[in-house]
């Protein structure tokens, strides 16, 4: 099972296992990772599961689709490596992925 490391805004690391095909947002919620609200449960409707993707994984994670990008435009403190974690789905290729959560999702 791919492992993903969530790093909170204070730098604390939480490695969690994500099932293949599951979004890293879902895995974060199940493991009570702080900093991921995901109010809509993964419907790409609320922009409260914003994360920053580690530069080393930017290519593998890929770019957001149009709908996600337009939501990200309204997230707080958005950066070029911002993604919505409900739209990143785990695969062996992403094993070891590191993402950082922002201080607040609202």
């Amino acid at each position: 099972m791919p492992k993903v490391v969530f790093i909170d805004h204070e730098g604390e690391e939480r490695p969690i296992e994500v099932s293949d095909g599951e979004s890293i947002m879902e895995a974060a919620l199940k493991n009570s990772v702080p900093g991921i609200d995901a109010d809509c449960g993964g419907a790409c409707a609320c922009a409260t599961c914003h994360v920053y993707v580690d530069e080393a994984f930017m290519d593998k994670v890929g770019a957001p689709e149009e709908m996600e990008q337009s939501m990200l435009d309204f997230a707080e403190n958005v950066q070029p490596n911002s993604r919505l974690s409900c739209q990143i789905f785990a695969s062996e290729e992403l094993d070891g992925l590191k993402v950082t959560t922002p201080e607040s999702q609202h």
Partner: protein
Amino acid sequence: MDLSTSENTVIIGGGQAAAQACAALRQFGYEGKITLIGEEAALPYQRPPLSKAYMKGELAEERLYFKPEAWYENNNIDLVLSMRAQKIDRARRVVEIEHGGEIAYDALIMATGSRPRVLPIEGADLDGVFDLRNLADVERIRPRMMGGQRMVIVGAGYIGLEAAAVARQLDLEVTVLEMADRVLARVTSPVMSEFYDREHRAKGVEIRLNSQISTIKGDGKVEAAVLADGTELPADIVLIGIGIVPNDDLAAGAGIACKDGILTDRDARTNDPRVFAAGDCAVRPLVHYGRTGRLESVHNAIEQGKLAAASIMGKPRPNEDCPWFWSDQYDLKLQIAGLSTGHDEIVVRGDPAERKFAAFYLKGGRLIAVDAVNSPPEFLASKRLITAGASLAAETLRDTSKSMKEIAAAAA
């Protein structure tokens, strides 16, 4: 009343508000025992996918759960499932459950949700007639949703139309009956109704407006829906989606103030300082609108779950966002912010023909709501503007040469 060091918090209900209250209580540092009493057998789960991806068969049941079972164990949360709370004895501070059991509380959160409005007609108890509210409802209906089956949906609200979209995608023959003269009449404006009416018809849904079902015919099993004008529509499945009613009987029976729902203050507290209410069952102050109301939404369940937990823990009141909702039908993502009731002006931005547009609702120049189709920027910008009470000119909102980001920045 300081309940932060109390020993027992009981939550009645097992939906979104209940799950949120559990998580928020622990997050705020509550150390007492939490007991969740739920009528359903499943772990607390998300309802929105029931009329969308889950109904279509694209999601496993486990993926609906908010938390795995171990989380409740690790957080000292006792799940009492498949169990009905029967009475609240406020003098003794106990919840009476089935089979004579009692569960004591210091703080009590009513997250009892709502139930589908019953259609009081002959034949509503026939095999093949369904509501859509619970996992169990979907388990019953889904095996019958095979291509070619004829499905009659009563009610063109969000549930009815979402189910219609799923059924068409599964290749059923679908007819939607609506008493009003347009779809989504109770929840949105004519411009949105026209758009969704057209989309569904283009996908092959037959929509009958101004039409009322009078009986459901069949011998043990559904054979036809009969309309008030005598028309018979042959049917294998009849799905009733005519709204929900709040589950406030338990609270009302215990003398807690109710009026079409359990009455709460801004902190989700009822007229009993030890009792709180959250989610579909609660009537709350709508602070952005200067009135009270009941909201049927995920946002509301989450927010009130947090508000109740914060009240119990004596924490500062969490943010009160403007209400928001969403609906997925086919490839259309509808995102709604605010409540449009009482608007005096509608401004359309973008072109419905392009299946990407938004309808803004203004009242006295102030933005009070938006319906945004495949338009997240319009939704997200409006959510902030409504929460801030911003005023905007119609021509500004209509001007697509400016992005919503620019418009929002100028209005702030």
